[in-house]
């Protein structure tokens, strides 16, 4: 039976197991005088039977499906005559693909060797057998599991405990996905990063003040020129994020204040989602907007003022990014300000404070930890944002604090290094992973510190 059919079958069996266990638990309860004399509700006996029926069967099914391909492959391959036998997994998968395309009529049988045609039959056979075994095994295990659970429908057994423990484990594993993701991220960048540091000294990378992967392409330049110093990238990231925050924090906060204090309910209900749309606009769109509308405008403006401005300025990218993250600040702050106990507001108003005074002197300080949380989130977004800077900020790694200059950011470098013309093992490709690793570490520290600060702050005021 196909896996696609087996799954529904297991589901049906699970349902049957559930139903049978349910009925059995009721009939067990009958002579005792009702289900109140069971240790658990019939539902839990039934749910336990369902779990016993499905979980082991599904686990076996998953394992089988995971390995059957490889096993069949090696069987088929070993049946091939020596001169056709593939020497590696790649060739083997080719042969298999050829065989299956052949049987599907997508390839011309005349153009493939006869042995392959023979192998195609073997493959078919093996697949059929595997299906058979798989079906039998899975059904058997499901039945065994269900039977076991069936025998355990006894009034003294606490099925609820069992079911709840299983669920709790399930919930825990879901929470653990966050850890797995982190491990996955580290895993996916660590090897390349280490290889990178095999070529470029760590100190060089961490403290070098010049970033220029183009020159570093040439073997002789690596290291000698400090071409892999990440300082300018991080200062660039900081500069752009700082500009973005300068835009987003005041605008967002004032918007939040207006929304929570002055706007009437209906107005707020309309305005808030509209502001939130700013965060939903795809970043590609912002990128075009920054590069084509804002950057030239800033340049012209700067020139009119007699200033030198690059056509790709940090300012343009920062401004637009700032607009994008306004809702992070405004929505979260609005929520937090609303969550400040009404008693504090009343207290201030009753003293004759105006709304703005109440806001500035009481609500705002009280909401600060929460607002900080929103701002931190916005800052993280700004640091991690890619598309806008790719289009609007440029690639030149200048170590500068002048917002009219062009700078580049970590994320831009990662994207360009990874999606551009990569070479095998060149330090430049590996550098992308090292940058990714750094960025990850930086946000991690950032968050840990932030959590500490926010917690401390909170304790002080609660």
């Amino acid at each position, binding site marked *: 039976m196909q896996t696609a059919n087996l799954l529904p079958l297991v589901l049906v069996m699970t349902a049957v197991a559930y139903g049978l266990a349910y009925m059995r638990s009721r009939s067990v309860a009958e002579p005792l005088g009702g289900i109140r004399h069971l240790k658990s509700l019939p539902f839990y006996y039934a749910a336990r039977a369902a779990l016993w029926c499905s979980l082991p069967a599904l686990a076996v099914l998953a394992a089988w499906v995971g390995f059957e391909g490889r096993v069949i492959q090696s069987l088929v391959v070993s049946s091939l005559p020596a001169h056709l036998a593939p020497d590696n997994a790649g060739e083997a998968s080719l042969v298999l693909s050829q065989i299956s395309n052949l049987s599907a009529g997508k390839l011309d049988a005349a153009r493939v060797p006869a042995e392959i045609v023979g192998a195609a039959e073997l493959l078919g056979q093996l697949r059929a057998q595997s299906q058979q075994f798989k079906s039998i095994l899975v059904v058997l295990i499901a039945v065994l599991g269900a039977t076991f659970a069936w025998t355990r429908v006894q009034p003294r057994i606490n099925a609820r405990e069992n079911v709840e423990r299983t669920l709790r484990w399930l919930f825990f594993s879901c929470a653990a996905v966050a850890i797995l993701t982190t491990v996955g991220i580290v895993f996916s960048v660590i090897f390349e990063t280490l290889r990178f540091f095999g070529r470029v000294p760590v100190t060089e990378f961490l403290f070098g003040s010049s970033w220029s992967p183009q020159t570093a392409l040439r073997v002789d330049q690596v290291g000698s020129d400090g071409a892999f110093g990440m300082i300018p990238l991080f200062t660039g990231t900081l500069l752009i994020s700082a500009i973005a925050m300068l835009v987003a924090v005041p605008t967002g906060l004032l918007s939040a204040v207006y929304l929570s204090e002055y706007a*009437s309910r209906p107005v707020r209900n309309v305005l808030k989602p509209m502001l939130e749309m700013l965060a939903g606009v795809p970043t590609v769109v912002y990128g075009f907007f920054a590069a084509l509308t804002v950057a030239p405008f800033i340049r012209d403006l700067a020139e009119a003022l007699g200033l030198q401005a690059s056509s790709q300025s940090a300012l343009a990218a920062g401004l637009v990014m700032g607009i994008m993250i306004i809702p992070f600040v405004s929505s979260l702050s609005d929520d937090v300000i609303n969550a400040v106990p009404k008693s*504090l507001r009343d*207290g*201030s108003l*009753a*003293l004759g*404070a105006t709304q703005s005074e109440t806001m500035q002197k*009481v609500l705002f300080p009280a909401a600060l930890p929460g607002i900080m949380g929103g701002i931190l989130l916005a800052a993280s977004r700004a640091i991690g944002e890619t598309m806008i800077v790719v289009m609007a900020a440029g690639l030149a790694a200048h170590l500068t604090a002048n917002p009219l200059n062009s700078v580049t950011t970590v994320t831009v470098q990662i994207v360009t290094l990874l999606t551009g013309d990569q070479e095998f093992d060149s330090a430049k490709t590996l550098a992308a992973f090292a940058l990714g690793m750094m960025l990850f570490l930086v946000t991690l520290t950032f968050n840990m510190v932030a959590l500490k600060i926010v917690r401390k702050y909170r304790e*002080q005021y*609660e």
Partner: protein
Amino acid sequence: MNTTVTAGTAGVSERQTATAPQPAREDTAVREGVTVGMPFADDPKFRLRNVEVFYGVDRAIKNISLDIARNEVIAFIGPSGCGKSTFLRCLNRMNDSIDICRVKGSLQLDDLDLYDPKRDVVELRARVGMVFQKPNPFPKSIYDNVAYGPRIHGLANRKSDLDDIVENSLRKAGLWNEVKDRLDAVATGMSGGQQQRLCIARAIAVSPEVVLMDEPCSALDPIATARVEELIAELSESYTIVIVTHSMQQAARVSHRTAYFHLGHLVEVNQTDKVFTAPEHSLTESYITGRFG
């Protein structure tokens, strides 16, 4: 403690009582707009007539008329939900902040119409201070809490003036000795009773003429409650005080006059000792004898 009528309430007169003053035991129904006892006063601080308050379409206060005399302590008592807080909050327009709340009728403070659209609530609230049920100090230092009002109202020109105001207010609130060495400590770290007295200090720091108190002791333990009650007695010499309380004992201890509310009606207003010893209205009697509430 102080249950005799002081000078401040000398003017309280009995101009309108629609029911016969003597035994009205059978009168268990309330008639709208009719209050037994002595609801009115000559030259009152507050002159409130035909006040009605609506939450949306619900009428929470039903045609209440009442005068509050200068420098008297008046207690509002009554079972839960009868409208005590609502009525109290009309007096400094704290109800403004509730969207669905509408106030009708004539409410005057010293001849000024409270609900005049041109009326300035900021100024009004500076004159009519308020203390709430749950102590609500700002999460700032003790000093800043008390200095908050004077600062926003610009009452002190110099730092030393401000220091004086803070010290005086804390002294009046009987808190000075306890906190004088830690004025910079965060106020939320104090005990509940201290917090409540701080809130009182904060309210009197702007020298209001009236102080409204909505169950100021109900979150406090007995010792703290006693301190706050003492304080109220002292303050009554310089301020008009309106206090809502759940505890009849407390009303008896601190107030000159007591007003009994019932389901949005003002049933009876009288000298406090009169209310507790010889209530005129049968509902009042049921309440104070503990037949309900």
